[in-house]
């Protein structure tokens, strides 16, 4: 027991060194001014080395997402649960396909949301997985509106 504990104590630093370093962890949050993102546009910014989509949704995109709230899907969620109350036009998503991590492109697939170029996962205009190999919806990061045109991610 003592030997195993000693070996584990020695091995742990050699293993843990590969986990995110202090300076990587320090990049925990960023702020973004979205005043220049026009209706129907989307920006991709980098947060923790990952792309984050900030999409200014059109009323048609929102309506299409809300209309499908109770459709059958792999990871059911309402559109309202994926945006901040009263800010349904702003959809903030981690732009990483939940299958194998590629960056989905907007406008493709039968729901005209996101389509992943790698293995064909189809997301709707709420970023919910509709079909394809991805198991989960595009993740919504922790974020808050810190001003009329400012959002803080992380």
């Amino acid at each position, binding site marked *: 027991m003592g030997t195993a504990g000693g070996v584990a104590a020695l091995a742990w630093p050699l293993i843990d060194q590969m986990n995110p370093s202090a300076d990587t962890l320090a990049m925990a949050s960023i702020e973004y001014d979205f005043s220049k993102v026009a209706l129907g546009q989307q920006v991709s910014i980098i947060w923790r*080395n990952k792309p984050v989509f900030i999409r200014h949704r059109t009323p048609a995109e929102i309506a299409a997402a809300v209309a499908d709230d109770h459709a059958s899907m792999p990871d059911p969620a309402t559109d309202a649960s994926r945006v901040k109350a009263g800010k349904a036009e702003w959809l903030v998503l981690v732009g990483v396909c939940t299958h*194998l*991590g590629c960056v989905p492109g907007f406008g493709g697939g039968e729901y005209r949301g996101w389509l992943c170029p790698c293995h*064909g996962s189809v997301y709707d205009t709420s970023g919910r997985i509709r079909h394809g190999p991805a*198991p989960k919806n595009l993740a919504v990061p922790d974020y808050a509106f810190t001003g009329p045109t400012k959002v803080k991610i992380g």
Partner: protein
Amino acid sequence: MSGHPPSTYEPKTGIEKWLDARLPIVRLAVDMMDFPTPKNLNYWWTFGGILAVCLMTQIVTGVILAMHYVPNENMAFNSVEHIMRDVNYGWLIRYIHANGASMFFLAVYIHIARGMYYGSYKAPREVLWLLGCIIYLLMMATAFMGYVLPWGQMSYAGAVVITSLFSAFDQVIPGLGTAITTWLWGGFAVSGATLNTFFSLHYLLPFVIAGVVVLHIWALHVPGNNNPIGVEVSSKADTVPFHPYYTVKDGFAIVAFFVLFAWFVFFAPEALGHVDNQTKANPLVTPAHIVPEWYFLPFYAILRSIPQKLIGVLAMFGSIAMLFALPWLDTSKVKSMRYRPTARWFFILFVLATLGLGWCGGKEPDDMVMTMGHTANGDPTGFSVTWLSRILGIYYYAYFLLVMPILGLRETPNKVPTTISTPVLGGAAMPAGSTAQAEKKG
């Protein structure tokens, strides 16, 4: 090496005797050269030697490239351009290394297929086969990490997809997969930390491979080589010394193989690459059509053909695990498929299925093999690449899990010769001295 006959080495000079009593390394080399080798080995047996030269080529060119390459996310891509444009003969050394990886896999696939056809994995060579499977796994890990180092768009996308395979374990224990990917990445996505880790391991693993190759050759020298008729050596008349018979034969095959190698290096150095990798890695954009290198395509097709993430990942790793289990799945006592007329057809179908999976892996999943109509949007419908992948993938598994166990019990093999010399000498027992003309078969 216990399979060797009594050593014939006689140290003659004083220095040889002195060394032999302290480190019998000359004795080892002489015994290796004298090793009794079945006299009927055909050209499929030359790929072991070809692979040894491939490994040496990769190590020599790789060590040189590391003298000029910078494993840093901001400088890696430019340092590769520096190698290609500025370093003396850098273009040549890098093209040898990059195409060398493909040549290495071409040779290893032929080597594996030879072992499967002639039953080289069967008793008493199971450990030899397992060591070979470990080398193959190490080769795949090394090739994957090497492909990431140029830090182009395909490098980046490949690193993302392959490391994200482990995120499937989130479906077993929530959080486990994420913990593994975070650890592999050294961050929250593939980044500079990942690149440095991969560079370190890419430099290390070839030497691990070289170590396992030593064990592989050791395990080969205990029972000795299998051979095309799959009958064990029964007397000295069945063998010839490794040198000069097989040094010359392997040497000729190595030269022929390097003609093909040189053709790629000098005339089509980018034929096996992807144009997207000429663009520096950009985490915000994934190239529209990402595919792995050709040697991973069959496994990629299996992964992609299954809509459920965890099962897809397990099916992909499982397709390689099948190779490890093969010695215990094949129930036939007859080694060589030369004497298994039914098994031979199943084997040919297996090779075609694997090549077919490779073809599927290079296509888009929704591409049609056979178009039968169109949807309202004008998209074609019919028999898709995904469905072809599923059918071929099922056959790939069935070959190992159904054909190999069942066929061995049910088939009637052809008559197997009693010794290696019999098929050439018409079955009559011949004195050892009269077998010389049989060597042209070798």
